[in-house]
């Protein structure tokens, strides 16, 4: 899977857990928290959906790796491709 596909997966999850947020113009390098009204509870949901929908495990110590779309792609792409 490519990094762009991974970013789309993350965006799809955010759309699902926060339907009122506008995800159409998210910047890749800026933190998701800065661009949207997300808090630590919401990040737990992103992790939960990654596990449920894609079987990807993210340990709590790695949550900071999900800060921006770019860092999500860097962190998650190997995990998806190892499957």
């Amino acid at each position, binding site marked *: 899977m490519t990094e762009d596909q991974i970013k789309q997966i993350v965006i799809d999850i955010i759309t699902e*857990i*926060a339907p*009122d947020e506008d995800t159409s113009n998210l910047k890749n390098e800026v933190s998701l928290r800065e661009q949207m*009204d997300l*808090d630590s*509870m*919401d990040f*737990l*949901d992103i992790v*939960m959906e990654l596990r*449920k929908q894609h079987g990807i495990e993210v340990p*709590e110590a790695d949550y900071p790796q999900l800060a921006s779309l770019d860092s999500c792609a860097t962190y998650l792409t190997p995990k998806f491709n190892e499957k």
Partner: protein
Amino acid sequence: MPQIVLLNMPNLTLQGQHFEVAIIGAGMAGLGAGIRLALAGKNVIILERHNASGGLNSFYSIGGRKYDVGLHAMTNYMPKGTKGTPLGKILRQLRIGYDDLDLSPQNSSRIHFPGYKLVFSNDFELLESEVARAFPQQIDGFRRLAQEIQTLDAFNLSSGKVSARKAVQRHITDRTLEDMLFCPLMYYGSAEEHDMDYGQFSIMFRSIFFEGFARPFEGVRVIIRLLQSKYRDLGGIRKMKHGVKRIQTESKKATQIILDDDTILSADQIISTIGVVETLRLCDDLNETTGADNIGQLSFTETITVLDKQPAEFGWNDTIIFFNTREHFYYGRCKNSLVDPTSGVICFPNNYQYGNGRQMDEGFLRITAMANHDLWCTLDEDNYLIQKEHWYQELQDTALGLLPPIRNTFSLKEACISKDMFTPRTIRKFTGHLNGAIYGAPNKLKDGRTHLDNLYLAGTDQGFLGIVGAILSGISMANLHVLKRS
């Protein structure tokens, strides 16, 4: 005819079953936690002793009429689309749409003390201007207090207890204004007498003064139905009339759950929402006297008067009135009398902006005051009914003394088509709270941890109060202790 003897038989479908998480109590916190866990795909069961969900916020029917208990108003109101508020957080966490709650904002409410009144609404500026009008010397201090509360991290689960009285007195030097600000916050959520924890005070201040009151047109059952069906749709199991009577333990772990009918089941983790002392006393490594110094002392009575007219036709437009008729406000146990009618809450569920021409068919007047649990529980049945009748009338008279004079030639008595009243005895019976203490134990367990590694607390005694607070408590504890760990 041979007599049939019904024995307590273990429930065969549950007997010996194992769950990832068992939740004790199907109140707001239990349902909130249940939905979170079911969303994560956990194998979860909610065990409830009563036959109705909702816990402290429930409803019942008498004579075909539905009465809410608990809910005067939902606090934490926010208009649709507001960001970063507790209500917004729970809706997102539970994946429930804002419109499904069908919330209508209040008209306005007031705090009524001898010689003073402060009107407030869901617009904080109104309260600010009222304080400036009634207490011109105090307005700067009031603004400093509000500013401080706005920026305080009140949801910090590890913060220690700080006296709210002392914290407020740093900004407000007039005792009457101080008491007037405490009155609604205490009545809507303080398990502690005379003072509150400053974190609690701040949460309540925000939820009532910054955010405000709203109500679903059909009352609390809208919220309960919503939570129940969400939980069910996600595959969560809920068993009513399945009370837990014992938790078996082994080296600091809960190993088995024993139900009232002797069914035995087990779970990796248990979240209890039934109160801290009530929970600890279920554990077989502790005894009946555990936590005796942390049992709530504050119980209440409430009268409900059903009217054949809208309250507005009497000239009553307030949504909620918090009153005190003493020189100094007293929020503490009612000592030598069944009821303390010198302070309390008057509420008109009709007086919300329901819109679309919607209006409740009947008028409702609800009056709440502090009551003495032990005295109510020692009355024999005849006396209980006599005292109920007596105090019902006392409280109507108290309210009539505080409400605007009745318009037209209506009389409350003639307009009354039905009435009901609950006492501390009723509360204990239906909620299981020791002493009938609605707001639970004075000392809260903010991080939800107990003496057992896999038993956690959520709900009233974890420390977030009100409907939104209780749901948030269930969500937070499920997140913290179950979802973050797996």
